[in-house]
């Protein structure tokens, strides 16, 4: 008896899938794995593991780490990695970017005493702009330079006004009736005294400001701030093993002081761990933070 053609077709499909599962799903990855075990390739196939001076596994040269203490504060003797959105920071089981957009500039301020669904204190939500400003201020303070940036307040949040009043034809508010510094929760001192002649208020947590026109204020910070871009932004993977050479050099004096060595030696170590562009034009110059810190631990151990 002949089977109907649609059944024959599906049987062929089942058999084809099984064949390709064996070929592409088992034989192929095993073959790649087997060849990758040859010396020279195997350390890379196995995660480019690096060790400390005393031979302990310190991690992977390709996977960034946090060099912070239990409170999340930077350890002064170590170069710091970029901000990370992977879990609580540099968690390979939860890799992620922040995914916050370029106009994510309004915070949700925490309401004192309020609880969220899980009965934890309300923490509000920081916009990407405020995260950038806060990081810039913190890095500036740690490294002893100005952390000022465009669109940031001196106290390290996004400099954004909510302007209330009648709208003109182009959408602007020429004669505001009320102006609020949206990301500065009371009792903070607003970064601007007045805006178009109206006194700027601090924001009351929990108040709905949606009706106001959102006006970010550029301020007079330089377009190229002292704290480099990579120091204030999270990477794509949350595991970025590198920082820019500029950010590394910014950290050199602090690390040198903590370790009690001349800055020149630390700068030399940076140079040694810096990779230029591949073939001269691919990618960007970068400094591997884990390798740099391991090298310093070897040559200039920290005697805290």
């Amino acid at each position: 008896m002949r089977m109907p053609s649609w059944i024959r077709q599906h049987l062929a499909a089942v058999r084809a899938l099984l064949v390709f599962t064996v070929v592409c799903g088992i034989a192929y990855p095993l073959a790649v794995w087997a060849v990758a075990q040859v010396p020279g390739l195997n350390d890379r196939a196995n995660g480019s593991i690096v060790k400390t001076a005393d031979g302990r596994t310190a991690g992977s040269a390709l996977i960034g780490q946090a060099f912070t203490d239990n409170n999340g504060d930077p350890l002064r003797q170590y170069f710091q990695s970029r901000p990370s959105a992977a879990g609580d920071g540099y968690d390979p089981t939860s890799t992620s970017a922040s995914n916050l957009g370029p106009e994510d500039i309004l915070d949700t301020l925490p309401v004192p005493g309020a609880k969220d669904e899980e009965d934890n204190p309300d923490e509000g939500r920081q916009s990407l702009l405020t995260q950038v400003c806060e990081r810039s201020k913190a890095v500036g303070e740690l490294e002893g330079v100005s952390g000022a940036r465009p669109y940031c307040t001196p106290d390290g949040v996004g400099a954004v006004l909510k302007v209330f009043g009648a709208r003109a034809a182009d959408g602007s508010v020429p004669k505001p009736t009320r102006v609020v510094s949206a990301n500065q929760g009371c009792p903070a001192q607003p970064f601007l005294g007045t805006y178009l002649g109206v006194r700027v208020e601090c924001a009351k947590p929990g108040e709905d400001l949606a009706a106001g026109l959102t006006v970010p204020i550029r301020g007079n910070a330089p377009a190229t701030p002292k704290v480099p871009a990579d120091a204030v932004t999270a990477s794509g993977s949350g595991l970025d093993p590198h920082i820019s050479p500029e950010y590394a050099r910014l950290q050199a004096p602090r690390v040198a002081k903590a370790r009690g060595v001349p800055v020149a030696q630390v700068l030399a170590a940076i140079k040694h761990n810096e990779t230029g562009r591949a073939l001269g034009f691919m990618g960007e110059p970068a400094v591997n933070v884990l390798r740099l810190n391991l090298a310093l631990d070897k040559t200039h151990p920290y005697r805290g």
Partner: protein
Amino acid sequence: MSPTTAGILFLGSLVLALALVYRPLGDYMYRAYSGTGHLRGERWIYRLVGVKPDAEQRWGVYARSVLAFSVVSLLFLYGLQRLQDRLLLSLGMDPVKPDQAWNTAVSFVTNTNWQSYSGESTMGHLVQMTGLAVQNFVSAAVGMAVAIALVRGFARTRTDQLGNFWVDLTRGTVRILLPIAFVAALILVSGGVVQNFWNPADHTVATIAGGQQAITGGPVASQEVIKELGTNGGGFYNANSAHPFENATAWTNWLEIFLILLIPFALTRTFGRMVGQVRQGYAIAAVMGVLALASISLTMLFQGIHHGTVPTAVGAATEGTETRFGVLNSAVFAASTTLTSTGAVNSFHDSYTSLGGMMTLFNMMLGEVAPGGVGAGLYGMLVLAVITVFVAGLMVGRTPEYLGKKIGSREIKFASLYFLITPILVLVGTGVAMATDSGRAGMLNSGPHGLSEVLYAFTSASNNNGSAFAGLTVNTVFYDTALGLCMAFGRFLPIIFVLALAGSLARQGQTPASEGTLPTHRPQFVGMVAGVTVVLVALTFLPALALGPLAEGIH
């Protein structure tokens, strides 16, 4: 060297490398699909599958074979995920929940690789290897097979035979994808991409600051390479090709972009050889190349000048990008992955500047034709060429012809139906999501950017791309189901129309070119097809773009 010069050289070297391999690879693929001999290994496969490799199929049988193979793949992949906790190498992961398993199965079978899951916390090594990576191979081979069948429709006369799906599937996998993947996987390993079978729980290290870190290994290199080569895009890890274990260095990044663009461009040479006029292939490649270069350059420009509040505060569009790649090489990757139906990302489009992010969205809205997914890009572009000769024929009042085939009412109906499917899925899907609480609840960002996230999701799913404005929470019953449906309809309805078109073309005789025939190999035609493509997209999607990225970027 300034970053701008380096970025231009990066793009230039990719163009050069693609031009160098264009002829050899295109000719090799031509021989692979047109040869009459079978390799010994292929004969074994045909025997195991139980098909006669020299018997050809009519378009209906070819289409039913595609669908049968895809349905079986879908069920197998669904089952594998649901049962993973009882199988080997599960790393202790739970079974994937039903709506997510459905979504993922559709996603990988349709060559989309949309991921509502996070690889490192959802999928064990066995599912990644024998489920997801297998579909990366065969879904790519299915796309190529359908494209080849359409080209046979143009090349053949007075026949109802379009080739044998099982043979095309086997040859695409065995002769084209596997050899390139094997070599490229080892090159990636040499750059630092991992290939092992570790359980992260056994490889947790104490960091030098005193913390703990799990080193998450896996059979990554073998999967990474086919994910790019087959324009699939599904990352082994959640961070996709931004993850250092998937894309370790600036040069592996170059190689991955090269692999993404390799087959879609070279297939136009295969097309030219099959229809016996290589210049027709060059014309199609030129349309793809013009659109791709324009789009990549604009994306680099928008990312480079970093317009917008947060990028200005930062001083560069570095949010969501890796230091080793930099902003401009990330932009090249972003444009390439959305111009093809790949959807792998080495940086996160959600945090791109408004206009840079819009380019990634616009690229997908082009219908994944410049150069598009493997196979899907070629058949998409040929459908647009058919529409173009029809539009041109209307303007001058002649019967439209393409490659000696008359474009009559039957042909133009199939071409139009093909074109209409994705806009309907994208716009209706986005509308439904914005109208329902469960759709709106997923948005991470508010305002126009929130709409962009939803619009991006439906555009990506319906065009089988798979990248995301990843802030959107999509691991919900609503999005898993809705996007799964978009992916399935967005893949298989066009395939059916393409094969029907192929059948209709193959039945015709060859119309000799006359003075009134529109030459389809000249720059004029290249410009017309590019124009038709952009105008059709602009007319369809401009209102939606105006409410999302344009509203955000221009104020």
